[in-house]
């Protein structure tokens, strides 16, 4: 491999890591919900893409950064809706019931998107779209850098929320020991609902970031985002937020590495094989949550 090839390879891995922030956010959403409810919300990535689609409604009226903010807020609204429809009125001791209801929601959201847009991909606005920074032999796309920064901002916001507010305290308490939290006077169902809204904020941001980085939104994004988000969640370790962040960046990088080496149609095979290697050699993921007392 010549010197130029090596530079190209590093460049694509670098781009992949930056795009990996979207995977990281989706992974954090899965992990947050799993943390408090021990349930998996399969409609999460679809709701995130759906929030980005909904934010297209205001794209003509407001400047682009506000469109992203709208996507985040709408993600929160959709999160509350998903909780209300798929979790609130279902028996939580039936693990299969919520799995199936979120699958129904996933199909419903996907079809709603197809129905509303006639299945046509929609352009999504990006900031700094034409800007390219040169760092030595590498170049950094402005829009991708913005996506990366936005992702980091969302993660910092989440960290502050979880550690500095009463709401975050309640979320962590319910995640650790829901009965003890209940005995201390916290409403478990309210905390669950709030967690869905917070995860929805992150998801909406991730949806907007995906749209901004790729340039278009398509209903075909929902299933791959769901799969990648789940992969990130498992590689990072269930319930671990730092794990999800690192795993998201790693998955983004590895994905682009193999896209460079083996082509776009084969790249996901290697991502999945990496996941399998993790399941065999380190089933707990990068950072397994501390051993459960419950």
């Amino acid at each position, binding site marked *: 491999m010549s010197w130029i090839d090596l530079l190209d390879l590093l460049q694509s891995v670098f781009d992949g890591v930056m795009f990996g922030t979207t995977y990281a956010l989706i992974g954090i959403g899965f992990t947050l919900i799993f943390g408090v409810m021990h349930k998996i919300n399969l409609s999460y990535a679809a709701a995130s893409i759906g929030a980005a689609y909904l934010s297209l409604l205001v794209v003509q009226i407001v400047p682009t950064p506000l469109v992203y903010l709208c996507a985040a807020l709408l993600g929160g609204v959709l999160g509350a809706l998903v909780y209300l429809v798929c979790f609130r*009125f279902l028996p939580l001791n039936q693990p299969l019931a919520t799995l199936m*209801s979120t699958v129904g929601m996933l199909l419903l959201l996907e079809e709603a998107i197809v129905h509303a847009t006639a299945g046509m991909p929609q352009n999504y606005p990006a900031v700094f779209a034409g800007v390219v920074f040169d760092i030595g032999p590498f170049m950094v796309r402005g829009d991708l850098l913005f996506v990366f920064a936005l992702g980091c901002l969302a993660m910092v916001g989440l960290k502050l929320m979880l550690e500095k507010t009463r709401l975050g305290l309640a979320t962590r308490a319910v995640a650790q020991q829901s009965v003890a939290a209940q005995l201390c006077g916290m409403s478990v169902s309210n905390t669950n609902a709030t967690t869905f809204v917070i995860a929805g904020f992150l998801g909406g941001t991730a949806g907007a970031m995906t749209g901004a980085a790729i340039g278009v939104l398509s209903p075909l994004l929902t299933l791959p985002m769901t799969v990648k988000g*789940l992969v990130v969640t498992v590689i990072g370790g269930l319930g671990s937020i730092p794990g999800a962040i690192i795993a998201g960046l790693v998955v983004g990088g590895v994905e682009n590495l193999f896209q460079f080496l083996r082509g776009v*149609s084969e790249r996901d095979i290697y991502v999945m094989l990496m996941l399998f290697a993790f399941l065999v050699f380190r089933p707990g993921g990068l950072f397994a949550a501390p051993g459960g007392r419950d």
Partner: protein
Amino acid sequence: MDFYIGLLQVIGVHSLLGLSAWCVLHTGQVSLAQGGFFAIGAYGAGMLTTMLGWPLGWALLMAAVLAGGIAVAVGFPALRVKGLMLVVATTAFAEIVRLVFFNLSWKVQTPEGLIGPDGGLGFGGIRYFQANAWSNLHVLWLIWGLVAVVMALLWSLDRTRIGTLWRAVGEDEVAAQSAGINLTAAKVSAFGIGGAIAGLAGGLFSHNTTHIEHGNFTILLATFAIAYPILGGLKSLAGTLVAVVFIQGVLIEGLRFLGDWRSLLFGALILLVMLVRPTGVLGAPLRLPFVGRRDEPTSSAIPVERTHHA
């Protein structure tokens, strides 16, 4: 008439797919790998009859054995994890299978010309039924004959020691293990038998449609596979059949007059079924959603967590 025969054929193939997921769900595991085994069976049987000229019976048997064998081989590492981890592991497996077939291009010269899987373009010309002058009705008989055989086998299996073991593991792994049940053997056997049934269904599918491509075998197919037994209720085999008829017959075909709105209604109806009958259509007495349900969830908050929270 042909339309209804075709519909019944689809229902038959999907019933087998649902029954394959039923085996695995019976041991309390949620597997999204059934679509992968289905794809292995579809490509395997198709390649055997077209490229090697095998008779259909042997090709179907081989497809079942192959898919079952791969299921056992994958089952050993994959079934070490459970719950969400297993969902993701099996998803990854199904995606690997799909992508391998997406990248597989291998054509051989046969009397009918070049034939074989052709990467993204799919695998066409699996015309065994047409070449051997099978009528639609014959194919229908074959499919439903196999459905009947598989259902009879599973029904009797459910009443033997193996069925009891599977159910014990599905109800409570810890209790089953402390009663001396070999968890790995129970799970891997269910996984293997489920994989073999899915492979058989795949073989029937590829010969029935004559053209298959990787897009037939996405996670969506695997989701349907587990949706049938869950919606129908895990307690009975008939529930799976009812759910397949409901989804394929009523929701997908029966609502065609609604046009584009049909697929919207589809997700909503799955949601509705889960709200009204959380343990499946044939699972438990009718319960009303939104009424008197807050008493139930409290039981899940007891620290004795179920081990399989998916």
